[in-house]
Protein backbone atom coordinates (compact mmCIF):
# COMPACT_ATOMS: atom_id res chain seq x y z
CA UNK A 1 0.00 0.00 0.00
CA UNK A 2 1.07 3.54 -0.70
CA UNK A 3 1.93 5.67 2.32
CA UNK A 4 2.05 9.42 2.87
CA UNK A 5 5.26 10.91 4.24
CA UNK A 6 6.41 14.45 4.93
CA UNK A 7 9.30 14.83 2.50
CA UNK A 8 11.28 17.58 0.81
CA UNK A 9 11.61 17.38 -2.97
CA UNK A 10 15.18 16.18 -2.45
CA UNK A 11 14.04 13.40 -0.11
CA UNK A 12 11.15 12.40 -2.38
CA UNK A 13 13.48 11.86 -5.33
CA UNK A 14 16.03 10.08 -3.13
CA UNK A 15 13.14 7.74 -2.22
CA UNK A 16 12.43 7.19 -5.91
CA UNK A 17 16.07 6.32 -6.59
CA UNK A 18 16.17 4.02 -3.55
CA UNK A 19 13.10 2.21 -4.87
CA UNK A 20 14.54 2.04 -8.39
CA UNK A 21 17.75 0.64 -6.85
CA UNK A 22 20.07 1.51 -9.75
CA UNK A 23 23.25 -0.47 -10.34
CA UNK A 24 25.45 2.63 -10.16
CA UNK A 25 25.03 6.10 -8.70
CA UNK A 26 27.90 8.52 -9.23
CA UNK A 27 27.86 11.95 -7.63
CA UNK A 28 29.94 14.87 -6.51
CA UNK A 29 29.14 14.95 -2.79
CA UNK A 30 29.49 18.66 -1.88
CA UNK A 31 27.91 21.91 -2.98
CA UNK A 32 26.43 22.64 -5.55
CA UNK A 33 25.09 19.13 -4.91
CA UNK A 34 21.87 19.09 -2.90
CA UNK A 35 20.66 16.96 0.01
CA UNK A 36 19.21 14.51 -2.53
CA UNK A 37 22.44 12.53 -2.81
CA UNK A 38 23.01 12.75 0.94
CA UNK A 39 19.60 11.16 1.57
CA UNK A 40 20.37 8.47 -1.00
CA UNK A 41 23.66 7.80 0.80
CA UNK A 42 21.58 7.25 3.98
CA UNK A 43 19.56 4.59 2.17
CA UNK A 44 22.77 3.00 0.97
CA UNK A 45 24.26 3.01 4.48
CA UNK A 46 21.06 1.46 5.85
CA UNK A 47 21.31 -1.36 3.31
CA UNK A 48 18.11 -0.35 1.47
CA UNK A 49 19.88 -0.53 -1.90
CA UNK A 50 22.74 -2.55 -3.34
CA UNK A 51 23.82 0.27 -5.64
CA UNK A 52 27.51 0.85 -6.32
CA UNK A 53 27.97 4.46 -5.25
CA UNK A 54 30.91 6.35 -6.71
CA UNK A 55 31.81 9.63 -5.04
CA UNK A 56 33.86 11.66 -7.48
CA UNK A 57 35.94 14.84 -7.43
CA UNK A 58 33.80 16.96 -9.75
CA UNK A 59 30.51 17.01 -11.62
CA UNK A 60 32.42 16.46 -14.85
CA UNK A 61 33.66 13.21 -13.35
CA UNK A 62 30.21 12.36 -11.98
CA UNK A 63 28.74 12.38 -15.48
CA UNK A 64 31.83 10.65 -16.88
CA UNK A 65 31.50 7.81 -14.36
CA UNK A 66 27.78 7.55 -15.09
CA UNK A 67 28.46 7.39 -18.84
CA UNK A 68 31.09 4.69 -18.31
CA UNK A 69 28.80 2.65 -16.10
CA UNK A 70 25.85 2.99 -18.47
CA UNK A 71 27.95 2.02 -21.51
CA UNK A 72 29.22 -0.99 -19.57
CA UNK A 73 25.61 -2.12 -19.19
CA UNK A 74 24.56 -0.79 -15.79
CA UNK A 75 21.42 1.14 -14.90
CA UNK A 76 23.28 4.29 -13.92
CA UNK A 77 22.14 7.55 -12.39
CA UNK A 78 23.53 10.78 -11.02
CA UNK A 79 22.04 14.02 -9.70
CA UNK A 80 23.09 17.64 -9.86
CA UNK A 81 22.10 21.31 -9.79
CA UNK A 82 23.08 24.67 -11.23
CA UNK A 83 26.82 25.13 -11.69
CA UNK A 84 27.28 21.40 -11.21
CA UNK A 85 25.31 20.79 -14.39
CA UNK A 86 27.32 23.51 -16.11
CA UNK A 87 30.55 21.73 -15.23
CA UNK A 88 29.13 18.44 -16.58
CA UNK A 89 28.28 20.06 -19.90
CA UNK A 90 30.75 18.31 -22.18
CA UNK A 91 29.77 14.86 -20.93
CA UNK A 92 26.06 15.69 -20.88
CA UNK A 93 26.25 15.84 -24.68
CA UNK A 94 28.32 12.66 -24.81
CA UNK A 95 25.75 10.76 -22.72
CA UNK A 96 22.97 11.61 -25.17
CA UNK A 97 25.04 11.09 -28.30
CA UNK A 98 26.09 7.64 -27.09
CA UNK A 99 22.37 6.90 -26.57
CA UNK A 100 22.82 6.03 -22.90
CA UNK A 101 19.52 5.87 -20.98
CA UNK A 102 20.79 7.66 -17.87
CA UNK A 103 18.25 9.27 -15.54
CA UNK A 104 19.43 12.42 -13.78
CA UNK A 105 17.37 14.46 -11.32
CA UNK A 106 18.31 18.14 -11.54
CA UNK A 107 17.45 20.71 -8.91
CA UNK A 108 16.79 23.86 -10.94
CA UNK A 109 18.97 26.65 -9.63
CA UNK A 110 20.50 29.87 -10.93
CA UNK A 111 23.92 30.00 -12.55
CA UNK A 112 26.63 32.34 -11.30
CA UNK A 113 27.58 35.22 -11.46
CA UNK A 114 26.64 36.86 -9.17
CA UNK A 115 26.69 33.88 -6.83
CA UNK A 116 23.16 32.64 -6.27
CA UNK A 117 21.96 29.23 -5.14
CA UNK A 118 18.21 29.81 -5.48
CA UNK A 119 15.70 28.73 -8.09
CA UNK A 120 15.53 29.50 -11.74
CA UNK A 121 15.66 27.35 -14.85
CA UNK A 122 18.90 28.67 -16.39
CA UNK A 123 20.76 25.43 -15.74
CA UNK A 124 18.50 22.97 -17.57
CA UNK A 125 17.19 25.46 -20.15
CA UNK A 126 20.80 26.03 -21.07
CA UNK A 127 21.19 22.38 -22.02
CA UNK A 128 17.94 22.03 -23.88
CA UNK A 129 19.86 21.19 -27.06
CA UNK A 130 22.04 18.45 -25.57
CA UNK A 131 19.75 15.62 -26.67
CA UNK A 132 18.32 14.83 -23.22
CA UNK A 133 14.66 14.35 -22.51
CA UNK A 134 13.55 17.05 -20.07
CA UNK A 135 10.67 16.57 -17.63
CA UNK A 136 9.74 19.43 -15.25
CA UNK A 137 7.94 18.78 -11.95
CA UNK A 138 5.49 21.06 -10.16
CA UNK A 139 5.97 19.67 -6.67
CA UNK A 140 7.69 16.92 -4.68
CA UNK A 141 5.00 14.38 -5.58
CA UNK A 142 5.55 14.90 -9.29
CA UNK A 143 9.33 14.91 -8.91
CA UNK A 144 9.07 11.49 -7.23
CA UNK A 145 6.74 10.08 -9.87
CA UNK A 146 8.52 11.64 -12.85
CA UNK A 147 11.80 10.09 -11.71
CA UNK A 148 10.28 6.60 -11.71
CA UNK A 149 8.66 7.12 -15.11
CA UNK A 150 11.86 8.56 -16.60
CA UNK A 151 13.61 5.20 -16.17
CA UNK A 152 11.08 3.48 -18.40
CA UNK A 153 11.03 6.32 -20.93
CA UNK A 154 14.83 6.55 -21.24
CA UNK A 155 15.35 2.78 -21.47
CA UNK A 156 12.61 2.11 -24.02
CA UNK A 157 14.20 0.52 -27.13
CA UNK A 158 12.56 3.12 -29.39
CA UNK A 159 14.12 5.90 -27.32
CA UNK A 160 17.46 5.08 -25.64
CA UNK A 161 18.08 8.66 -24.59
CA UNK A 162 19.06 10.10 -21.21
CA UNK A 163 16.41 11.99 -19.25
CA UNK A 164 16.65 14.79 -16.73
CA UNK A 165 13.85 15.24 -14.22
CA UNK A 166 13.79 18.69 -12.67
CA UNK A 167 12.27 20.34 -9.64
CA UNK A 168 12.48 23.96 -8.48
CA UNK A 169 15.47 24.59 -6.24
CA UNK A 170 14.63 25.32 -2.59
CA UNK A 171 10.94 26.00 -3.32
CA UNK A 172 10.47 22.26 -3.87
CA UNK A 173 13.87 20.71 -3.14
CA UNK A 174 14.08 22.07 0.43
CA UNK A 175 10.38 22.45 1.19
CA UNK A 176 8.60 19.62 2.98
CA UNK A 177 5.27 18.48 1.57
CA UNK A 178 2.99 15.50 2.04
CA UNK A 179 4.11 12.98 -0.57
CA UNK A 180 2.47 9.64 -1.32
CA UNK A 181 5.13 6.99 -1.76
CA UNK A 182 4.53 3.67 -3.51
CA UNK A 183 5.78 0.36 -2.17
CA UNK A 184 9.30 -0.50 -3.27
CA UNK A 185 7.96 -3.70 -4.91
CA UNK A 186 5.52 -1.65 -7.01
CA UNK A 187 8.31 0.59 -8.23
CA UNK A 188 10.62 -2.36 -8.87
CA UNK A 189 7.91 -4.05 -10.90
CA UNK A 190 7.17 -0.86 -12.83
CA UNK A 191 10.76 -0.12 -13.84
CA UNK A 192 11.49 -3.81 -14.42
CA UNK A 193 14.84 -5.52 -14.71
CA UNK A 194 17.31 -3.55 -16.82
CA UNK A 195 18.38 -5.26 -20.02
CA UNK A 196 21.14 -3.17 -21.60
CA UNK A 197 21.04 -3.02 -25.37
CA UNK A 198 24.69 -2.82 -26.42
CA UNK A 199 26.76 -3.30 -23.26
CA UNK A 200 30.52 -2.93 -23.45
CA UNK A 201 30.92 -5.81 -21.01
CA UNK A 202 29.63 -8.41 -23.45
CA UNK A 203 32.71 -9.99 -25.09
CA UNK A 204 30.50 -12.19 -27.31
CA UNK A 205 29.15 -9.04 -28.97
CA UNK A 206 31.92 -6.46 -29.01
CA UNK A 207 30.94 -2.80 -29.55
CA UNK A 208 32.68 0.59 -29.50
CA UNK A 209 31.34 3.76 -27.94
CA UNK A 210 32.32 7.19 -29.21
CA UNK A 211 35.02 6.46 -31.81
CA UNK A 212 36.14 8.97 -34.44
CA UNK A 213 33.36 9.85 -36.85
CA UNK A 214 33.97 12.78 -39.22
CA UNK A 215 32.10 14.26 -42.18
CA UNK A 216 31.59 10.76 -43.51
CA UNK A 217 29.09 9.48 -40.90
CA UNK A 218 28.75 11.95 -37.99
CA UNK A 219 25.65 13.53 -39.54
CA UNK A 220 24.05 10.10 -40.04
CA UNK A 221 24.59 9.43 -36.35
CA UNK A 222 22.80 12.63 -35.41
CA UNK A 223 19.59 12.01 -37.34
CA UNK A 224 18.67 8.89 -35.30
CA UNK A 225 18.93 11.05 -32.17
CA UNK A 226 16.30 13.30 -33.72
CA UNK A 227 14.12 10.29 -34.50
CA UNK A 228 14.56 8.89 -30.98
CA UNK A 229 13.36 12.20 -29.53
CA UNK A 230 10.30 12.00 -31.77
CA UNK A 231 9.70 8.39 -30.70
CA UNK A 232 9.93 9.48 -27.07
CA UNK A 233 6.65 11.34 -27.40
CA UNK A 234 4.54 8.21 -27.73
CA UNK A 235 6.57 6.41 -25.05
CA UNK A 236 6.09 9.31 -22.60
CA UNK A 237 2.32 9.10 -23.09
CA UNK A 238 2.25 5.29 -22.80
CA UNK A 239 4.41 5.23 -19.66
CA UNK A 240 2.32 8.05 -18.16
CA UNK A 241 -0.88 6.09 -18.76
CA UNK A 242 0.57 2.94 -17.23
CA UNK A 243 1.89 4.86 -14.22
CA UNK A 244 -1.43 6.57 -13.59
CA UNK A 245 -2.87 3.13 -12.81
CA UNK A 246 -0.47 3.02 -9.86
CA UNK A 247 -0.73 6.60 -8.68
CA UNK A 248 -4.16 7.76 -9.80
CA UNK A 249 -2.56 10.91 -11.20
CA UNK A 250 -2.51 11.60 -14.93
CA UNK A 251 0.71 12.34 -16.74
CA UNK A 252 0.83 13.69 -20.28
CA UNK A 253 2.94 16.35 -21.99
CA UNK A 254 1.17 19.02 -20.00
CA UNK A 255 -1.60 19.61 -17.53
CA UNK A 256 -4.45 21.63 -19.05
CA UNK A 257 -6.08 23.31 -16.05
CA UNK A 258 -9.52 24.83 -16.71
CA UNK A 259 -8.49 25.14 -20.35
CA UNK A 260 -11.55 23.81 -22.14
CA UNK A 261 -13.50 27.05 -22.48
CA UNK A 262 -10.63 29.35 -21.45
CA UNK A 263 -10.09 32.57 -23.40
CA UNK A 264 -6.91 33.80 -21.74
CA UNK A 265 -4.16 31.31 -20.98
CA UNK A 266 -0.82 31.33 -19.17
CA UNK A 267 1.81 28.70 -20.04
CA UNK A 268 4.60 27.88 -17.59
CA UNK A 269 6.55 25.06 -16.00
CA UNK A 270 7.18 23.77 -12.46
CA UNK A 271 6.18 25.18 -9.07
CA UNK A 272 4.79 28.51 -10.31
CA UNK A 273 1.98 26.56 -11.97
CA UNK A 274 0.82 25.55 -8.48
CA UNK A 275 0.69 29.19 -7.39
CA UNK A 276 -1.26 29.99 -10.57
CA UNK A 277 -4.06 27.48 -9.89
CA UNK A 278 -5.78 29.47 -7.11
CA UNK A 279 -5.41 32.64 -9.24
CA UNK A 280 -7.24 30.91 -12.11
CA UNK A 281 -9.91 29.68 -9.68
CA UNK A 282 -10.44 33.20 -8.36
CA UNK A 283 -10.69 34.66 -11.89
CA UNK A 284 -13.21 31.96 -12.78
CA UNK A 285 -15.30 32.95 -9.75
CA UNK A 286 -15.32 36.48 -11.18
CA UNK A 287 -16.57 35.10 -14.50
CA UNK A 288 -13.23 35.57 -16.29
CA UNK A 289 -12.39 32.61 -18.50
CA UNK A 290 -8.81 32.02 -17.45
CA UNK A 291 -6.85 28.82 -18.03
CA UNK A 292 -3.43 27.39 -17.24
CA UNK A 293 -1.28 25.13 -19.38
CA UNK A 294 1.45 23.65 -17.22
CA UNK A 295 4.11 22.14 -19.43
CA UNK A 296 5.67 18.95 -18.06
CA UNK A 297 7.75 17.81 -21.03
CA UNK A 298 9.98 20.45 -22.62
CA UNK A 299 12.11 17.97 -24.61
CA UNK A 300 10.72 16.52 -26.81
CA UNK A 301 8.66 19.67 -27.29
CA UNK A 302 4.99 18.77 -27.83
CA UNK A 303 4.37 21.47 -30.44
CA UNK A 304 1.29 20.02 -32.15
CA UNK A 305 -0.40 19.19 -28.88
CA UNK A 306 0.17 22.70 -27.52
CA UNK A 307 -1.22 24.25 -30.71
CA UNK A 308 -4.30 22.05 -30.37
CA UNK A 309 -4.74 23.06 -26.73
CA UNK A 310 -4.49 26.77 -27.66
CA UNK A 311 -6.98 26.52 -30.54
CA UNK A 312 -9.46 29.40 -30.34
CA UNK A 313 -7.82 31.13 -27.34
CA UNK A 314 -7.89 34.93 -27.39
CA UNK A 315 -4.53 35.73 -25.75
CA UNK A 316 -1.68 33.66 -24.37
CA UNK A 317 1.11 34.54 -21.91
CA UNK A 318 4.25 32.42 -21.78
CA UNK A 319 6.34 32.56 -18.59
CA UNK A 320 10.05 31.78 -18.77
CA UNK A 321 12.18 31.31 -15.65
CA UNK A 322 15.41 31.69 -17.64
CA UNK A 323 16.74 34.35 -19.99
CA UNK A 324 18.03 33.49 -23.43
CA UNK A 325 20.26 36.52 -23.87
CA UNK A 326 19.90 38.21 -27.23
CA UNK A 327 17.01 35.97 -28.26
CA UNK A 328 13.43 36.97 -29.01
CA UNK A 329 12.22 36.27 -25.48
CA UNK A 330 12.64 33.14 -23.37
CA UNK A 331 13.16 29.68 -24.82
CA UNK A 332 9.66 28.46 -23.95
CA UNK A 333 8.21 31.60 -25.55
CA UNK A 334 10.21 31.03 -28.76
CA UNK A 335 9.09 27.40 -28.93
CA UNK A 336 5.41 28.22 -28.45
CA UNK A 337 5.55 31.07 -30.99
CA UNK A 338 7.27 28.84 -33.50
CA UNK A 339 4.67 26.10 -33.01
CA UNK A 340 1.80 28.55 -33.48
CA UNK A 341 3.37 30.16 -36.56
CA UNK A 342 3.97 26.83 -38.25
CA UNK A 343 0.36 25.88 -37.60
CA UNK A 344 -0.83 29.14 -39.12
CA UNK A 345 -2.26 30.36 -35.80
CA UNK A 346 -2.16 34.09 -35.09
CA UNK A 347 -3.11 34.17 -31.42
CA UNK A 348 -1.77 37.25 -29.59
CA UNK A 349 1.15 36.11 -27.40
CA UNK A 350 3.17 37.82 -24.73
CA UNK A 351 6.30 36.75 -22.85
CA UNK A 352 7.08 37.20 -19.16
CA UNK A 353 10.56 36.59 -17.80
CA UNK A 354 10.33 35.97 -14.08
CA UNK A 355 11.77 34.39 -10.97
CA UNK A 356 15.47 34.72 -11.77
CA UNK A 357 17.78 33.83 -8.90
CA UNK A 358 14.91 32.84 -6.62
CA UNK A 359 12.86 36.06 -7.04
CA UNK A 360 9.44 34.89 -5.84
CA UNK A 361 6.48 34.51 -8.15
CA UNK A 362 3.77 36.02 -5.96
CA UNK A 363 0.01 35.69 -6.37
CA UNK A 364 -0.19 39.38 -7.40
CA UNK A 365 2.48 38.83 -10.08
CA UNK A 366 0.37 36.06 -11.61
CA UNK A 367 -2.72 38.27 -11.35
CA UNK A 368 -0.78 40.92 -13.31
CA UNK A 369 -0.14 38.36 -16.08
CA UNK A 370 -3.86 37.67 -16.50
CA UNK A 371 -4.70 41.39 -16.26
CA UNK A 372 -2.35 42.06 -19.17
CA UNK A 373 -4.02 39.25 -21.12
CA UNK A 374 -7.44 40.77 -20.44
CA UNK A 375 -6.19 44.13 -21.74
CA UNK A 376 -4.88 42.48 -24.89
CA UNK A 377 -8.28 40.88 -25.50
CA UNK A 378 -10.02 44.23 -24.89
CA UNK A 379 -7.74 46.37 -27.04
CA UNK A 380 -6.59 43.77 -29.56
CA UNK A 381 -3.05 45.11 -29.10
CA UNK A 382 0.16 43.68 -27.62
CA UNK A 383 2.12 46.69 -26.34
CA UNK A 384 5.14 44.91 -24.99
CA UNK A 385 6.11 41.54 -26.33
CA UNK A 386 8.76 40.84 -23.67
CA UNK A 387 7.90 41.71 -20.07
CA UNK A 388 9.66 41.33 -16.73
CA UNK A 389 7.62 40.18 -13.76
CA UNK A 390 8.42 41.42 -10.23
CA UNK A 391 11.54 43.25 -11.41
CA UNK A 392 12.63 46.61 -9.95
CA UNK A 393 13.23 49.04 -12.82
Amino acid at each position, binding site marked *: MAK*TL*GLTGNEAVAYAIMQINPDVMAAYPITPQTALVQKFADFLADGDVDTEMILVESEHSAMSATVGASAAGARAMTATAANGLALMWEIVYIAASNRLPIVMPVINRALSAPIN*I*LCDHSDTMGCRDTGWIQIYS*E*NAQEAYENTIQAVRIAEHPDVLLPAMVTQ*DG*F*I*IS*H*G*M*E*DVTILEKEQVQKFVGEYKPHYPLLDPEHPVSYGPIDFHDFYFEHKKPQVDAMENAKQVILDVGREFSKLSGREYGFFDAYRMEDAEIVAIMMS*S*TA*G*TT*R*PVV*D*ELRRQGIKAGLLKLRVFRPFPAEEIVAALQGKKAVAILDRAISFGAQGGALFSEVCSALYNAGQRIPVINFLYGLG*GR*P*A*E*IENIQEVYQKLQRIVQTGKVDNLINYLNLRE
Partner: protein
Amino acid sequence: MAEITEIRWHGRGGQGAVTAAKILAQAAMEKGFHIQAFPEYGAERRGAPVKSFTRISKDPITIHSPIHNPSAVAVLDATLLDAVDVTEGLPEDGILVVNTVDNPADVRKKLNLKGRKVFTVDATQISIDCLGKPIPNTPMIGAVMRAAGTLPLEEVISGFKHKFSAKFQKEVIEGNIKAIKRAYEEVKTE
Protein backbone atom coordinates in the same frame (compact mmCIF):
# COMPACT_ATOMS: atom_id res chain seq x y z
CA MET B 1 -9.35 30.35 -1.74
CA ALA B 2 -9.11 27.32 0.51
CA GLU B 3 -8.61 27.89 4.21
CA ILE B 4 -4.93 27.63 5.06
CA THR B 5 -3.23 28.09 8.44
CA GLU B 6 0.12 29.80 7.94
CA ILE B 7 2.78 30.07 10.64
CA ARG B 8 6.04 32.00 10.47
CA TRP B 9 8.99 31.03 12.66
CA HIS B 10 11.73 33.49 13.57
CA GLY B 11 14.97 32.18 14.98
CA ARG B 12 18.69 32.50 14.76
CA GLY B 13 20.73 30.10 12.64
CA GLY B 14 21.28 26.95 14.71
CA GLN B 15 18.20 27.28 16.96
CA GLY B 16 16.12 24.89 14.90
CA ALA B 17 13.49 27.17 13.34
CA VAL B 18 13.39 25.02 10.20
CA THR B 19 13.08 21.82 12.24
CA ALA B 20 10.25 23.35 14.28
CA ALA B 21 8.37 24.22 11.10
CA LYS B 22 8.80 20.64 9.88
CA ILE B 23 7.80 18.90 13.12
CA LEU B 24 4.58 20.89 13.29
CA ALA B 25 3.86 20.08 9.63
CA GLN B 26 4.56 16.40 10.28
CA ALA B 27 2.10 16.37 13.18
CA ALA B 28 -0.60 18.06 11.09
CA MET B 29 0.03 15.65 8.21
CA GLU B 30 -0.50 12.68 10.50
CA LYS B 31 -3.81 14.21 11.49
CA GLY B 32 -4.80 14.10 7.79
CA PHE B 33 -3.95 17.67 6.80
CA HIS B 34 -1.99 18.69 3.72
CA ILE B 35 1.18 20.50 4.66
CA GLN B 36 4.18 22.51 3.59
CA ALA B 37 7.20 23.46 5.69
CA PHE B 38 9.97 25.52 4.15
CA PRO B 39 12.82 27.81 5.09
CA GLU B 40 13.62 31.23 3.76
CA TYR B 41 17.14 30.85 2.47
CA GLY B 42 19.72 33.52 2.82
CA ALA B 43 23.34 33.15 3.76
CA GLU B 44 23.32 30.36 6.34
CA ARG B 45 25.30 31.56 9.31
CA ARG B 46 25.00 30.43 12.90
CA GLY B 47 23.36 33.20 14.90
CA ALA B 48 22.00 35.20 11.95
CA PRO B 49 18.24 35.90 11.88
CA VAL B 50 16.40 33.18 9.92
CA LYS B 51 12.78 32.54 9.02
CA SER B 52 10.86 29.39 8.28
CA PHE B 53 7.23 28.68 7.48
CA THR B 54 4.50 26.08 7.98
CA ARG B 55 1.33 25.80 5.90
CA ILE B 56 -1.52 23.53 7.03
CA SER B 57 -4.72 22.96 5.05
CA LYS B 58 -7.62 20.52 4.75
CA ASP B 59 -7.33 20.75 0.94
CA PRO B 60 -4.24 20.01 -1.13
CA ILE B 61 -1.87 23.01 -1.14
CA THR B 62 -0.73 24.01 -4.63
CA ILE B 63 0.54 27.51 -3.85
CA HIS B 64 4.32 27.81 -3.76
CA SER B 65 4.82 31.50 -3.09
CA PRO B 66 6.14 32.92 0.19
CA ILE B 67 3.91 33.58 3.23
CA HIS B 68 3.31 37.29 3.89
CA ASN B 69 0.29 37.26 6.21
CA PRO B 70 0.76 34.41 8.69
CA SER B 71 -1.99 33.66 11.18
CA ALA B 72 0.65 33.02 13.85
CA VAL B 73 4.26 34.04 14.43
CA ALA B 74 6.69 32.20 16.73
CA VAL B 75 9.88 33.92 17.91
CA LEU B 76 12.55 31.52 19.16
CA ASP B 77 14.93 34.21 20.37
CA ALA B 78 13.77 37.35 22.20
CA THR B 79 16.80 39.35 21.02
CA LEU B 80 15.20 39.24 17.55
CA LEU B 81 12.51 41.63 18.80
CA ASP B 82 15.16 44.39 18.55
CA ALA B 83 16.48 43.23 15.18
CA VAL B 84 13.53 42.09 13.06
CA ASP B 85 9.93 43.29 12.61
CA VAL B 86 8.41 40.04 13.84
CA THR B 87 4.83 41.31 13.52
CA GLU B 88 5.19 42.25 9.84
CA GLY B 89 2.09 41.14 7.95
CA LEU B 90 0.54 39.63 11.09
CA PRO B 91 -3.19 40.46 10.92
CA GLU B 92 -5.21 42.11 13.68
CA ASP B 93 -6.41 38.74 15.04
CA GLY B 94 -2.99 37.09 14.57
CA ILE B 95 -1.04 35.33 17.30
CA LEU B 96 2.47 36.17 18.48
CA VAL B 97 4.36 33.63 20.64
CA VAL B 98 7.74 34.70 22.03
CA ASN B 99 10.40 32.69 23.84
CA THR B 100 11.25 35.03 26.72
CA VAL B 101 11.28 35.28 30.52
CA ASP B 102 9.05 38.36 30.17
CA ASN B 103 5.26 38.47 30.39
CA PRO B 104 3.06 39.08 27.33
CA ALA B 105 2.33 42.61 28.56
CA ASP B 106 6.09 43.40 28.56
CA VAL B 107 6.42 42.20 24.97
CA ARG B 108 3.39 44.20 23.91
CA LYS B 109 4.85 47.33 25.49
CA LYS B 110 8.31 46.73 24.01
CA LEU B 111 6.88 46.35 20.50
CA ASN B 112 4.28 49.08 21.03
CA LEU B 113 1.84 46.55 19.64
CA LYS B 114 -1.86 47.17 18.94
CA GLY B 115 -4.25 44.28 18.44
CA ARG B 116 -3.04 40.68 17.99
CA LYS B 117 -2.73 38.22 20.84
CA VAL B 118 0.60 37.87 22.63
CA PHE B 119 1.87 34.73 24.37
CA THR B 120 5.20 34.14 26.11
CA VAL B 121 7.03 31.09 27.38
CA ASP B 122 10.55 30.57 28.75
CA ALA B 123 11.40 27.90 26.19
CA THR B 124 15.14 28.30 26.67
CA GLN B 125 14.92 27.42 30.39
CA ILE B 126 12.58 24.54 29.60
CA SER B 127 15.03 23.11 27.06
CA ILE B 128 17.93 23.47 29.51
CA ASP B 129 15.88 21.63 32.15
CA CYS B 130 14.65 18.87 29.84
CA LEU B 131 17.52 18.50 27.37
CA GLY B 132 20.51 20.04 29.11
CA LYS B 133 20.94 22.42 26.16
CA PRO B 134 19.42 25.76 25.16
CA ILE B 135 17.59 24.58 22.00
CA PRO B 136 14.20 26.25 22.28
CA ASN B 137 12.58 24.95 19.10
CA THR B 138 10.73 21.89 20.38
CA PRO B 139 9.21 23.53 23.48
CA MET B 140 8.14 26.41 21.22
CA ILE B 141 6.11 23.95 19.16
CA GLY B 142 4.15 23.07 22.30
CA ALA B 143 3.62 26.75 23.10
CA VAL B 144 2.47 27.59 19.55
CA MET B 145 0.04 24.69 19.54
CA ARG B 146 -1.49 25.83 22.80
CA ALA B 147 -1.73 29.43 21.55
CA ALA B 148 -3.04 28.63 18.07
CA GLY B 149 -5.18 25.66 19.07
CA THR B 150 -4.59 24.03 15.69
CA LEU B 151 -3.71 20.57 16.97
CA PRO B 152 -4.07 18.70 20.26
CA LEU B 153 -0.88 18.07 22.23
CA GLU B 154 -0.87 14.30 21.62
CA GLU B 155 -0.76 14.83 17.85
CA VAL B 156 2.25 17.11 18.10
CA ILE B 157 4.05 14.57 20.26
CA SER B 158 3.34 11.67 17.94
CA GLY B 159 4.45 13.79 14.96
CA PHE B 160 7.72 14.49 16.75
CA LYS B 161 8.25 10.81 17.53
CA HIS B 162 7.69 9.77 13.93
CA LYS B 163 9.95 12.44 12.49
CA PHE B 164 12.85 11.66 14.81
CA SER B 165 12.62 8.17 16.25
CA ALA B 166 15.08 6.87 13.66
CA LYS B 167 17.48 9.77 14.12
CA PHE B 168 17.79 10.26 17.89
CA GLN B 169 18.29 8.11 20.96
CA LYS B 170 15.38 7.38 23.25
CA GLU B 171 16.53 9.81 25.96
CA VAL B 172 16.66 12.68 23.47
CA ILE B 173 13.16 11.89 22.21
CA GLU B 174 11.82 11.65 25.79
CA GLY B 175 13.52 14.93 26.77
CA ASN B 176 11.99 16.73 23.82
CA ILE B 177 8.53 15.37 24.54
CA LYS B 178 8.85 16.54 28.13
CA ALA B 179 9.88 19.98 26.86
CA ILE B 180 6.92 20.18 24.44
CA LYS B 181 4.50 19.23 27.25
CA ARG B 182 5.97 21.70 29.72
CA ALA B 183 5.83 24.60 27.26
CA TYR B 184 2.27 23.64 26.34
CA GLU B 185 1.33 23.95 30.02
CA GLU B 186 3.45 26.96 30.94
CA VAL B 187 2.75 29.32 28.04
CA LYS B 188 1.45 32.62 29.40
CA THR B 189 -1.32 34.67 27.84
CA GLU B 190 -2.54 38.22 28.39
